[in-house]
């Protein structure tokens, strides 16, 4: 029996229509143009979950100068900030045309990334688990994956039941990066020695109780931004810092990569074993009420227990570790 031509044509038409509509079962049909944005942050930033945001936001906050004294007028905390620098580590600048050699000074700005939407990125994931038991280090300190838990960004407010993030914390920071979508992970420390070592957070009076843990000064934030450019909005920008920076991915890395570096004055270049990281005192000023200075749990370098003879000195240099608040 001969099949009529119109039947063959109709069958082919049906198959074609079915194939067209079922193609997405076999390939990604999402043609939304998006750009991967990565922000590496290094320094003594406060990673704050603002209570008002209901847990859906983390701010990388830049601390102001701190000059605190006790009731007797003795200096208890002196930290002089030298600024926060933002660099385009990879990507093509659309606007402005060039970046300063020392990056843009963003210490007094509020940074957001636009546009962000649900099509390209989910609500912010910023996982901070429970500290593992002693020696409280990542399972494999040489494996980047082991450092991804934000628990490796220490937290002062976890140890104080009566002292929580101040409701006026925004007055105590000079600027911040607001993260509302994407993923925020901890990253291995910028100093290979610190990567292998631990810190004991303690005070002279033994209350709150001391504890030991590994700490990092670095985090990595990743988000997919719709479109082929990323706009970095810098509210309150002044001087040579523009109010917005537009970047697109380059042909090598296929992403936009930013670097945020915090630098403060007279950083203790090297910290001997059992010596305190004195600049950590700045984070206690964000608590309400500020605990008595004798109660501050200050990190003391305990060295590298993994390497025989490898106690070494921790070297924050211009980069001190951060602290998580409100998690």
């Amino acid at each position, binding site marked *: 029996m001969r099949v009529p031509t119109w039947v063959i044509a109709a069958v082919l038409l049906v198959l074609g229509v079915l194939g067209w509509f079922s193609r997405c079962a076999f390939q990604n049909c999402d043609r939304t143009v998006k750009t991967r944005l990565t922000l590496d942050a*290094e320094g003594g930033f406060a990673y704050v979950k603002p209570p008002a945001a209901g847990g859906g936001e983390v701010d990388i906050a830049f601390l102001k100068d701190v000059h605190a004294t006790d009731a007797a007028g003795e200096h208890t905390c002196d930290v002089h900030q030298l600024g926060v620098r933002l660099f385009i580590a990879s990507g093509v600048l659309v606007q402005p045309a060039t970046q300063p*050699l020392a990056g843009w000074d963003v210490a007094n700005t509020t940074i957001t990334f636009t546009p962000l939407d649900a099509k390209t990125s989910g609500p912010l994931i910023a996982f901070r688990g429970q500290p593992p038991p002693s020696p409280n280090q990542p399972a494999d300190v040489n494996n980047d994956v082991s450092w991804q838990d934000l628990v490796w960004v220490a937290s002062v407010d976890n140890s104080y039941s009566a002292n929580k993030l101040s409701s006026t914390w925004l007055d105590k920071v000079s600027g911040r990066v607001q993260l509302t979508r994407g993923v925020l992970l901890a990253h291995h420390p910028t100093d*290979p020695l610190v990567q292998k070592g631990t810190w004991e957070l303690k005070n002279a009076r033994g209350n709150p109780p001391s504890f030991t843990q590994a700490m990092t000064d670095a985090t990595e934030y990743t988000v997919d931004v719709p479109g082929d450019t990323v706009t970095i909005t810098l509210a309150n920008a002044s001087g040579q810092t523009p109010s917005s920076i537009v970047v697109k991915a380059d042909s090598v890395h296929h992403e936009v990569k930013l670097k945020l570096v915090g*630098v403060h004055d007279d950083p203790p270049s090297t910290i001997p074993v059992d010596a*305190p990281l004195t600049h950590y005192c700045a984070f206690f000023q964000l608590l309400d009420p500020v605990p008595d200075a004798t109660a501050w749990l200050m990190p003391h370098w305990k060295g590298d227990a993994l*390497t*025989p003879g490898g106690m*070494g000195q921790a070297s924050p*240099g211009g*980069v001190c570790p951060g602290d998580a608040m409100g998690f």
Partner: protein
Amino acid sequence: MRLVLAAAAVVGAAVLGARAIVDPLNPHVLLAPTAATRFPIVILADGFTPDEESDFDSAAATIAAQVQAASFYSANIGLFSFTSAFNAAATSGVSTVGFHDPTGATECAIDWDPSTSATIDAVLTGVAHFRVIVIGNRDYHFGCAYDQWIYLAQEAQFYPDVIPHELGHAIGGLKDEYFPDPPASFAYSGPALVNENCWSGAPPPWWQAAFMTATNAPGCMGYTAGVVHAYDDCRMKRLTSDFCLVCLSLMNKAIAPPPPPAAPTNIRIIKASMQPPPPPPVATVRLLVRVNAATSDVAVTSVSEESRLPASTRARVGDIAYEITDGGQTIDTAVVPGDPFEVRSYAGSPAAPHTAARRDSANVVVYLQQATLAALRSRDVAITFYRLSPTARPRQDVTPDALGAMKTATPPQATSFATLTADALRRAVETAIATRRPI
């Protein structure tokens, strides 16, 4: 005709062959040398695959620009040149010149093979270099300096003051002025510091008369007591600062061109001419010499000939000096900046400040002024290294006469500890000529 074509092919192949040797480095001139350039700096890639060349190029350009923008260097920019050299790695992050993770307690966050310094010079054959900034493809922020190289993990490019600070060590022999916060306490008890930017003598420090604004606060070189520094606001103490007046004065002394060497007695005058001869091209022979302070062993690591004035100085920028003799006659002296046996690091340094970060042997750069490899084949040039008493002739230039007086003082103020003999130097020169790579 065929013969001509064949000859052309041979010449062409030779030229291409020469390029094939040099081109893999793909040197990029980031700041061209001038006639005054004495401090050519090469930025060498380490651990970057060909796919990552643009990452290295970007980092190298950034670092070169950072130095050019820093105040002291911008004011003396004609003395410097920058060239980047891409030495491709087969595997990302794996060094091609012998840098590797430390296997135990070390001075730095990176360790290296005994042959690393020689390998670096071999890789850079034909590329003039006073110092080599090695950018390691490692996702960290640390640095380490030894021999003729300064190793930086690539994240250091985001800290624009690192290399301007490190060159303060390499050129002016400047000491680090930072020290740990209380309650850490380290009292300095080493050799007297009376020539440097740290002062361990009785007050006032040497700089007080010239710089009356100096505050002379305690702490320097990692020690919290027993030593003072002039100003808190100084590149050697604080990132983002310029050199303080004291460090600036030491740097300015260090970059002053050295006087020409004395003529040896065995030079033959070929003939006199009625017309003044054209000035000869500037020629300097650069030696990288491994010196062991404990055993007195000396060996030449590399030899190269450069068409530029040397980076040597007679200023008192350190306590190690060398004397160049030709046929037994002293023709030149120079001071090695800083302490060449000290391994400097930021990040990952040992527990006691600087005291443990020393090695017995180090590669020292020695310059032979107005010399060529060809001429050295027939000369009796020897090099003797001296340890100078820190308090002898403080802050005075180490001229041949001054060194002679220090050697014969009672007790001696300059003690020789190693000598590169004329025979050993000639052998090294012959090897260099035999293996010289066309440029």
